[in-house]
């Protein structure tokens, strides 16, 4: 495979742009918006952004592979999952960049530790009590403010800088994935198992009659709308963090249709809704969507995938230099895999975070290396993610 290494990072574009007179880094970036969407559970990058033309892909993924006829083709190798139609439109219009074979520095396979590293901005779980985005909020003493669209403030936003949070006031509905896990957990308690089954059946009926909340599981919807309102308010926060679960697809994850497809559709609709809510502000917005790790290349015994290493991430928004897939693609041959099972990481997620903070918020390299992502001198900001302003 001679052509498997593709490197389309924006370094060359940036070199071009940097020479142009309109590229003024000194402009006031206080109106820049940033949204970080954390997908908890480990999104399967090989389904979200299938390397459909990679011969090993169809073979290794079998019934979970997204067929070449189904994918929304990004280029001759990669496509988007068919559920990501809005994001595909953004890609077409240059508002979405796709990162692949990307991972945090974490190399074990615990959700908890993996998310901890994703959020604390170092390479060691539990090493910080604050998160990289909180440190980024506070780095330049601007009046930029941040909000967590959840009941608590996730680690990535926790720290010395003051941060608010907002969540719908009623009890949040338990998502499908949690309910499915509970059904399994109750298998030794027939009484509770029966009660749960009855209650879910009743809810289904209520939903069909229009008397209930029929978009069960899509908790991103109302939260995204709220995020849009907060961020578009003139004096509102400029940074928002959202989180959504249900990505831990160990069983029956499906392919073009199925459990994972539903999650991806919610995400896709969420990003589209955010764009709609933000209106003109979308032009000054960058949305980064990331997860703690990818999933195994091979299908497991329950038509799902297990915890893996590298996966994909998305950078969307009107301020994004998109329409590109950024990947130093390692391939899926058996010797290409990490630990002989996972997609090999070739890009540190922190590069992308650093690139966004540097170009969108004017964070300096020193701030990024020492303060926001301590000890990450070796990890260079990914350049050219952000569109140069006129």
């Amino acid at each position: 495979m001679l052509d498997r290494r593709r490197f389309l990072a924006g370094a060359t574009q940036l070199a071009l742009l940097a020479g142009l007179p309109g590229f003024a880094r000194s402009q006031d970036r206080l109106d820049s918006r940033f949204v970080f969407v954390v997908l908890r559970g480990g999104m399967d990058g090989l389904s979200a952004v299938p390397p459909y033309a990679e011969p090993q892909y169809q073979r290794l993924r079998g019934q979970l592979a997204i067929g070449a006829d189904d994918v929304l083709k990004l280029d001759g190798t990669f496509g988007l999952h068919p559920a990501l139609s809005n994001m595909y439109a953004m890609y077409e219009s240059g508002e979405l960049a796709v990162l692949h074979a990307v991972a945090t520095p974490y190399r074990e396979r615990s959700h908890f530790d993996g998310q901890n590293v994703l959020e604390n901005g170092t390479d060691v779980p539990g090493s910080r009590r604050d998160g990289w985005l909180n440190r980024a909020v506070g780095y330049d003493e601007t009046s930029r403010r941040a909000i967590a669209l959840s009941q608590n403030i996730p680690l990535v936003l926790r720290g010395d800088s003051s941060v608010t949070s907002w969540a719908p006031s009623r009890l949040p509905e338990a998502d499908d994935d949690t309910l499915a896990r509970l059904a399994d957990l109750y298998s030794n308690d027939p009484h509770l198992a029966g009660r749960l089954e009855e209650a879910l059946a009743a809810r289904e009926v209520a939903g069909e009659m229009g008397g209930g909340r029929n978009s069960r599981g899509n908790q991103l919807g109302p939260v995204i709308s709220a995020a849009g309102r907060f961020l578009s308010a003139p004096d509102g926060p400029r940074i928002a963090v959202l989180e959504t679960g249900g990505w831990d697809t160990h069983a029956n994850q499906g392919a073009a249709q199925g459990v994972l497809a539903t999650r991806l559709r919610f995400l896709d609709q969420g990003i589209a809704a955010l764009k709609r809510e933000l209106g003109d502000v979308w032009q000054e917005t960058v949305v980064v969507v990331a997860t703690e790790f990818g999933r195994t290349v091979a299908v497991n015994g329950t038509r799902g995938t297990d915890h893996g290493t590298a996966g994909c991430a998305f950078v969307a928004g009107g301020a994004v230099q998109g329409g590109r897939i950024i990947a130093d693609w390692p391939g899926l041959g058996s010797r290409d895999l990490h630990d002989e099972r996972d997609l090999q990481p070739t890009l540190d997620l922190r590069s992308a975070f650093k690139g966004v903070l540097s170009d969108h918020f004017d964070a300096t390299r020193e701030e990024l290396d020492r303060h926001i992502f301590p000890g990450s001198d070796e990890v260079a900001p990914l350049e050219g993610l952000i569109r140069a302003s006129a």
Partner: protein
Amino acid sequence: MATIQAAIAANRFGLGARPGELENIGSDHADWLLAQLEGHDPESQSGTAGSADIIREFQRLLRARNAVRRDDDNERREQAAQEFRNYSRTQYREQATRRYSIAAASERPFRERLVHFWTNHFAISADKQSVTSLVGKFEDEAIRPHVAGRFVELLLAVEQHPAMILYLDNQASIGPNSTAARAAARRGRELGLNENLAREILELHTLGVDGGYTQEDVTTFAEVITGWSVGGNIDRRDTSEAGEFVFRAIAHEPSAKTILGKRYREDGLREGEAVLQDLARHPSTAKFLATKLARHFVADEPPAQLVDNLSATYMNTDGDLGSVYLALIESDDAWREPLAKYKTPEDYLVSTFRAFNSQPDDPERMLNFLELLGQRPYTPGSPAGWPDTMAHWDGGDALIKRIEWAAAVGQQISDRARPGDLGDAILGPNFSDHARTAVSQAESPAQGLTLLLASPEFQRR
């Protein structure tokens, strides 16, 4: 590794383990429980206004409202009405929040559970307007000081507490031949008995519904306690100590009376106290209380042998509750089925706070949750109190709401603990491998905590 007895002590006898509690108990589970019964309960003085102060303020606001009732000024009328309504609401909310704050942090959770148990046994309900602002005070003043003493002391404190008098209308019960009734009759007004308190004392507080009393006993007992009342009134001629329990001799039915075959000579206030002392000593009372305690601590259908044993202990010790608890703790039955009881919504809520060493910092949300699950604090809706069996609390929708609460709490505290370790810390050997696996494989700490709090072993005690 914690013992199963420590897990049972903390979760069944206590209010749900806090992290570290099981290690604390170690192998001294019985001592840990018994030590909690010693000394007095510091929470019995809340440091704020007592029930007498509250009743006085309630009466003042009521008078103020009534004074402007026919006022033409709408605004003044509305303002007085609003002030009157808000007072009870605010008091209620504060007292309910205090109750769960104490429970969440208590170092003596067995004793605190007993407080809740006896408050429920002697239930008053905040949905009656005259006691809405008194429910927590009743618990602090009448229940707390007496849960580990002799039952008769608890019984006397309860039946002479203004909240109980008002809840069951005894201030309105007038002996037909009393001075007050005769004076009223001369003015063409008829005053008479209200049997409410007398009936509930016999049926719900002491003998039990099948305890062997007759309607005549109820009526006679009502006569015995005529005059048991609350001082102060909206009538300004009243000079009694406002808000306190008072005996109004002018309302008391004079004459000797016979109850359950025993004759009581006319003795004013003491006459009723003598009847209560005999009721507390009655075998039916022993059986009734033993059954309720065994149901609360052991099983919805408690073993008959255990009930007999507790009942005998009660009789042999002249109703010493501490001895009954000791018999319970020393019985094998209490330690046999580790998860026999399904938590009530209150139990469930409190144990979620304790699991994280946290406090109810959003009272509104907490009260809403209990209301959604059908257990709004202090509102059992009848003097019978809340039911103490699983069948009443295990509806499917209620289960979903618990899961939603678990999810909300899980999200809130997801950073503070590793769900698998926390499960071991609070459930000990009751944490099944099945649940530990599910919790540890959750996709996020928040989901792991949700699964832990929704697991069968956490929902039971």
